[in-house]
Every structure is written in structure tokens, then in C-alpha cells.
């Protein structure tokens, strides 16, 4: 296959676009396609099937066809709104904290760039639960909250069990997911563009807005999606650091599947959530991509 290509390429280049053959392209995409088929499409089909089914006597799925589950799923919008608020706030925090960091590593990191990047992720090789417990200690009465009680004289002062603690925990856990995509795009940035921009008298902010930001945009979009979406489904951090005071859509899902053992109800809620998020993301991508020249395909 590879041997035949150069001979073809000697002809006018415009006729055949250079690059791997159709077969190779297909082979490249095939494994991922298979994964999506067997481990995404089929499981989701199962979820869809459950969502229109009946709950068994002792829970689980018991066949049948009904739309009752969908009716029940959207009766209460409280958890969804709570999740939305947490996810938006958390994503913004990740962005505010992550963008300067990614920029610094990408442009000032020098030959230690990869070291910096790996060091970002090493903390997450400790276990999630003990990391969160460490925050419980740091934010509890033996830590910062104790200081707070002394300072304010208020016996009921606490840091845990507040939205702030939850946002802190969320931002902490999802920061790499924002930083990595940003880094990956910023690192590619040709610094001569920035220098040229300054040579031509553009101020720092103008350079950032017109040179750096557009280049970082694909990373920014990917990062915000990778952070926002999982945050919507979060329930463990709200449960531990938030003392369970914030009831999210994730909590509602767990409640249905595990405590109520109502797989059909949980499935209907999940399908609804997936659908809403999918529409939101599609709109978000369309909105952020419509300004781009699209020299090649969009980042989608």
C-alpha cells in the first residue's frame, strides 16, 4: 500500500489528495468505532430499554412498556438546578485558575514543561477518598474551621457543609481536565506571533485577546466541556465536603438506582439528563465555532 502511493503522487497533486489511503483511514477509526458500538451504544440502548420498563418486585428491571418513568423524572427540577449552579461556578473557577497556569507552563516552562505537567497529575495518583478526607481535616475544626471559630467567637462556625467547600473540592478534582487541553493548544503557539504583535505596538491585553486567545480557543472549549459535564453528574464531593446539604442530580440518580432500586426511574432520569446535556453541548459548540474561519474542520 505504502509503496504504491508515491507513484500515484507524481501525477498532478490536485487530483488525488496526498495522505493515507481510504483503507488506512478506515482502519485508524475502526477500533474506536468498535468501542463506541459495544461499550457505549449497546449499554445506552439498554438504558433506553430500562427507561420504558417496569420496576421489579424487589427492584431492578422487569420488562413491560410504560412512559410513567419519564413523567416522574422531571417533576422536580431542584436537583438539576443545583447541579447546574455548581457546574457553572466550578467550570468558571477552573478556567480562572487553570488558564494562567496552562499559559505559564506552556510559554515559560522551558525544558521542564513535561515535568510541570506530570507534577499536576501526580497528586491524583493518591486515592480520591483520602484526598477528600485530607480536605475534611484541613477544613474541619482541627484545621481552618477551628481558626474560624476562634476568630469569630461563633460556636456554630464551619467551613464544611457549605457551597464553598463543595466548589473547592470540585475545582480541586477537575483542574487537570481544564489545564491539559489548554496546555496542549497553547504549547503549540508560535511565540514569534506574540513578539510580532508587540513589535507592532499592540498592548499586552490586545495581544492576548487577538493572538493568544484564538489559538487557545480549541483547548478552552474542550477543557470547559470536559469539566462542566462531569461536574453536572457529581455527587460524592457534595456528599462528603458539603455534608450532603447540596442535593444534586447525581444524588438523585444514585438514590433511584441504588436505594430505591428503581432502575427504570433512574434510567429515565439519566436519558433526560443526557438529552439535555447533548443539546446544550451542541449549541455551545455551534456558538463557539461559528466565528472561526475553519481553515480545516472545526475542533468538533
Amino acid at each position: 500500500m505504502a509503496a504504491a502511493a508515491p507513484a500515484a503522487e507524481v501525477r498532478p497533486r490536485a487530483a488525488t489528495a496526498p495522505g493515507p489511503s481510504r483503507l488506512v483511514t478506515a482502519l485508524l477509526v475502526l477500533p474506536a468505532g468498535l468501542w463506541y458500538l459495544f461499550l457505549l451504544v449497546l449499554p445506552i440502548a439498554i438504558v433506553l430499554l430500562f427507561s420504558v420498563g417496569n420496576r421489579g418486585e424487589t427492584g431492578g428491571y422487569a420488562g413491560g412498556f410504560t412512559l410513567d418513568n419519564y413523567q416522574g423524572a422531571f417533576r422536580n427540577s431542584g436537583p438539576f438546578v443545583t447541579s447546574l449552579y455548581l457546574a457553572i461556578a466550578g467550570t468558571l473557577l477552573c478556567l480562572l485558575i487553570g488558564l494562567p497556569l496552562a499559559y505559564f507552563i506552556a510559554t515559560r516552562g522551558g525544558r521542564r514543561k513535561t515535568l510541570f505537567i506530570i507534577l499536576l497529575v501526580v497528586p491524583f495518583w493518591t486515592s480520591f477518598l483520602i484526598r477528600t478526607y485530607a480536605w475534611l481535616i484541613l477544613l474541619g475544626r482541627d484545621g481552618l474551621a477551628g481558626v474560624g471559630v476562634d476568630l469569630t467567637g461563633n460556636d456554630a462556625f464551619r467551613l464544611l457543609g457549605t457551597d464553598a467547600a463543595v466548589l473547592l473540592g470540585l475545582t480541586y478534582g477537575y483542574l487537570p481536565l481544564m489545564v491539559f487541553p489548554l496546555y496542549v493548544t497553547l504549547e503549540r503557539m508560535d511565540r514569534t506571533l506574540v513578539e510580532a504583535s508587540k513589535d507592532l505596538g499592540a498592548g499586552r491585553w490586545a495581544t492576548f485577546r487577538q493572538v493568544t486567545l484564538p489559538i487557545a480557543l480549541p483547548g478552552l472549549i474542550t477543557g470547559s466541556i470536559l469539566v462542566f459535564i462531569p461536574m453536572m453528574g457529581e455527587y460524592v464531593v457534595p456528599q462528603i465536603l458539603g455534608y450532603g446539604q447540596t442535593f444534586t442530580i447525581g444524588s438523585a440518580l444514585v438514590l433511584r438506582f441504588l436505594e430505591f432500586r428503581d432502575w427504570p426511574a433512574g434510567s429515565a432520569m439519566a436519558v433526560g439528563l443526557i438529552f439535555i446535556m447533548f443539546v446544550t453541548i451542541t449549541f455551545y459548540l455551534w456558538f463557539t465555532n461559528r466565528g472561526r474561519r475553519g481553515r480545516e474542520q472545526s475542533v468538533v
Partner: protein
Amino acid sequence: MSAPAVPIPAQQTMRGRAKQGVDHTAGLVEAWLRAHTLLVYAFLYVPIIVVVVYSFNGTNQRVMHWEGFSLRWYEFVAQNNEVQRYLWNSVVVGLGTAIISTTVGTMAALGLQRVPRFIRMPFDALTYVSVIVPELVIALATLVFFASTIGRDGILTNATGITLGFGYHTIIGALSLFNISLTLLLVRARLSGMDRTHVEASYDLYATPIRTFWQITLPQLLPAIVAGFLLSFTFAFDDYLITTFVNGQGTSTLPLYVFGQIKRGVNPSTNVIATLMLLVTLTLLIGGQWLLGRYARRSGGRAGLGQGGVAEIVAEGGT
């Protein structure tokens, strides 16, 4: 290759006065960037310091009760086969998932550049769906899928007589889904806007697609691939929900052990393991960096190679 710390001297610009203003803020911005980075790393590592300190907790059972310094939990981990098995399983799952996800994801990202729209769009949709599905839901659904195909009473089991059952393969298979999408997105973010002139030049010079890929495209993609590998390993190593539902007998990982301890009180053994892992990784990283630096320097400073190690090579990829 980094931007100069001090901008070009005023005399080289057209608007001297304006440049003077920028001179001042340049220093401030640099200082702020540095401080910000330092603070973020501090933020990331303070809990880790707590984790390490509490690995020396002499408590009987619950890690959060500090009861004096002791190495007892280090002894515990050294003698406890189960805990060592959990660590081993986590490493296997982490590496397996990272390798598969990075490979499949990168391949897909490359291939997707050239597929027709009617294939690319559903693919993109599925990529986002795989990120959107709540983890509990995909965990349970995948469990049902596996159980009905390769489980004890599964379709495939009954048809072929071979029970694949649950084990490393189901965990790695299930975890790879999200991580393939993750790597896919990272590599595509990197690919978008990538300079194609080198690629086209390569073809003009009659290089085969493979050669072009190896020498031009891949080096430029390396940061994204490495990023995908690191994240995939991290997520697979520390995953709880999917792993707990699709794992098999004997393949419990560390997260399952830790979460399972909640009822009785989480003991410091996980802190010990975390500390040991940190020790190993940080030693490898910093030691490796230093060693590679020495090797490169000793081999002479060839033009363009510099004194960095793999880090610099990766960082320089493409420029």
C-alpha cells in the same frame, strides 16, 4: 523558546512612550504569573502533604484520628497480601487502560480528519455522549451488557461454551471508553490549526504517509498524546464506580478497598500506599530528569537538541 522576560528595547519601536508603559506591566505580569503558578501547585499539594503525614498515624482504625507517630501501617502494608494485590490490580488497570486509550484515541483522531462528514458527525456525537453519560449509569448499563453477553448466562457464553466472565478485561474495556474519547479530544484540539505546510512539503518530496506521520505529525502531537496517557492512567487508576460494578473476583483495585473501608473506618494503609507511590514517582521524575540532562550534556550540545531530557524533546516537538 520562551518569550523574552524583558520586551524589546524602546528604541526599536515606533511608539517609544507606549512601550515604556508596557515595560512596567511586563514585570508585574511575569511576577503575577509566577505567583499564581506557585499558589496553584501549593493548593494541589497541601492535601497531599496531609495524606503523607497521616500515613504515620498510629491510630487503631480511623485515619482521621491522630494518635501519635507510628510506622505500624507501613508494617501492615508490607505484610498484607490483599492490599498489595489491590495496588497491583490498580497498576494493571491503569496502565492497560492508558495504553489502549492513548493508542485507539490517537488513531481515531488522525483518521477522523479524513473521513467524510456523514461518518464524522455521528462519531463526534458519540464522543460527547460518552463524556455526558453519568458514570453510575454507564457502569450499571455496562454491567448488564457484559452479564448478558459474556457472563455466566450470557448469549456468547451459551453459544460458545466459553465463560469469559468479569475481570481485568471488563474493567479495562469499560474504562477505556471515556479515556479514548478524552485522548481523541485532546489530540484533535492539538491537530486543529496545526500547520500543514510541513505535511504537504513532506508529500511533495514523495514521502509515504507513514514516513510523514512518523517524522512530521507524530512529534507535533506528542504533548497531546502524553497528556492523554497521563490522564487516562490517572482516571483508570483512581476509578471507583465503573470498576466496582464490572470487576471480577480477585481484581479489586485500591479505590474499591478504600471505599469499602468506609463502614468500618478508613485506615491509614491507603495513605501509606499513596506516600510510597509519591516517593517512587517523584524520585523517578526528578532523578530521570537529572540523569537525562547529564547524558545529553555529555553527548555534546548538538544544535537544536539542547540539554533537556525527554521533556525538552517533547516540549520542542514541532517548532
